[in-house]
């Protein structure tokens, strides 16, 4: 088994998630847990609450100034990229038209993967 990070990108100018969208996200995460593939998942607070550090400079806001920002991420276990992409494709954020997801292989972790 390998681990993959699924980074969820979102356009915050599209407004808050609706209650329906939040419920869909939660259900999707629970489905991954039930399948046994979930390592961990995190939802992040709004990007305007972020603080970035580069050298001595402290700035308000996300590190990279882009339309879509990371809204959350999860790490899953999957035997190969096709399996990881299948999980990622089911993420509701892919369908909402205000962002999407990026799938990245995990190169290492602490504590180490099982």
């Amino acid at each position: 088994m390998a681990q993959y990070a699924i980074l969820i990108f979102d356009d915050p100018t599209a407004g808050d998630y609706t209650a329906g969208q939040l419920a869909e996200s939660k259900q999707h995460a629970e489905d991954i847990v039930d399948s046994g593939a979930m390592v961990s998942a995190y939802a992040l607070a709004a990007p305007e609450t972020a603080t970035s550090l580069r050298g001595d400079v402290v700035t308000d806001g996300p590190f990279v100034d882009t339309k879509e920002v990371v809204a959350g991420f999860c790490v899953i276990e999957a035997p190969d990229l096709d399996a990881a992409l299948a999980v990622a494709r089911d993420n509701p954020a892919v369908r909402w038209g205000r962002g999407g997801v990026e799938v990245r292989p995990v190169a290492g972790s602490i504590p180490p993967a099982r």
Partner: protein
Amino acid sequence: MTDAARAVADAHRREWALVLAATVRVARDLDLAEECVQEAYAAALTAWARDGTPANPAAWLTTTARRRAMDAMRREATFRSRLPLLVEPAETGYEPATDPPPEQTDAVPDERLRLVFTCCHPALAPEARLALTLRLVCGLPTADVARALLVSEQTMAARITRAKKKIATARIPYRVPRPAELPDRLPAVLGVVHLLYTAGHTAPSGPTLLRTDAADRALHLARTLRALMPDEPEVGGLLALLLATDARRATRTGPDGGLLRLEDQDRSRWDRAALAEAHELIVAGLRAGRPGRYTLQAAIAALYAEAPTYDETDWQQLVTLYDRLLAVWPSPVVALNRTVPVSMASGPAVALALVDELAADPRLARYPYLPAVRADLLRRLDRPAEAALAYRDALARTDNDAERGFLAARLAEVDIEP
């Protein structure tokens, strides 16, 4: 060339993909497998000269390459255990590779399909898919791949290395997709073969219009895919499209290398056997129902080719086929090509209005054939000054010398200025 050298060259052209695919199964590392297959071909030169060409060259090469791969893996067991290995799901799970019975190698033809589907995985960039397919499936040296795709050897080497690294690190599986996944995965494979053919058919720049080696490779690949996936109608459609286009290869350029228009080509020199083969594939594809993009494109190419003379072409039927093609593949280029039979069936004025509508499409903003089509319509409408402008516009958009020569000649016909 000696008999052995000829046999090795022949086996390289015909069996490379099979031997490599079978070796990858053991090595589970593309670089190691490639290295071992190259060594096996080199060993064949000496061995076959000494002992004669074996009855089954592919099996000989596979056995030799696999043995070398096993040796290398034993030698470097510790080192290689730290590298990510190719993922081979389902059948073998993750147990260590064992020495497989070599006599089985030529009985598993779909080994090559694994290789093709891995090289054309949608997680790889389109240009990387094409490069990997040429390198791994066709066995072309990196320098030749670079030349075929018009980039420097250094750029190509980096592109291939990066793609191989992604296959290993992201664990792109080495397998043929399940039937349910094929509709998602097959277009990428067919697209690579089609792109390869197009690269050979019309060189985007340089002195000649054709680079026949790339076209031949594409035809060979299409035939292989057809043999491996006989039940996929679009695979047959792609082969038919390449055959119907390639049947006219000899007449597309004149003796001076200049481009010849369809109406000026010598129809008696078209490859009738290729056209007949394409025809059968098209009929089967259309009969299977809901024909896809390639089957319809092939039907269009074949209909152009089947007319006894250019003027006897069934323009109305072509417009109908283009309409069906646009329905499954709404591309502005297809819409532009459709204006050619429209101009013959309904007159150049009707077609010109359609072309002018398409000119507003940003996707065609740099497309050289749009002003070329427009210029031809204006010429037929006896508006030489506007035609000359359009030919100049087309000339500014293409780097292919044969196409430039053709456009310059047309420009001279309509240009009234000194």
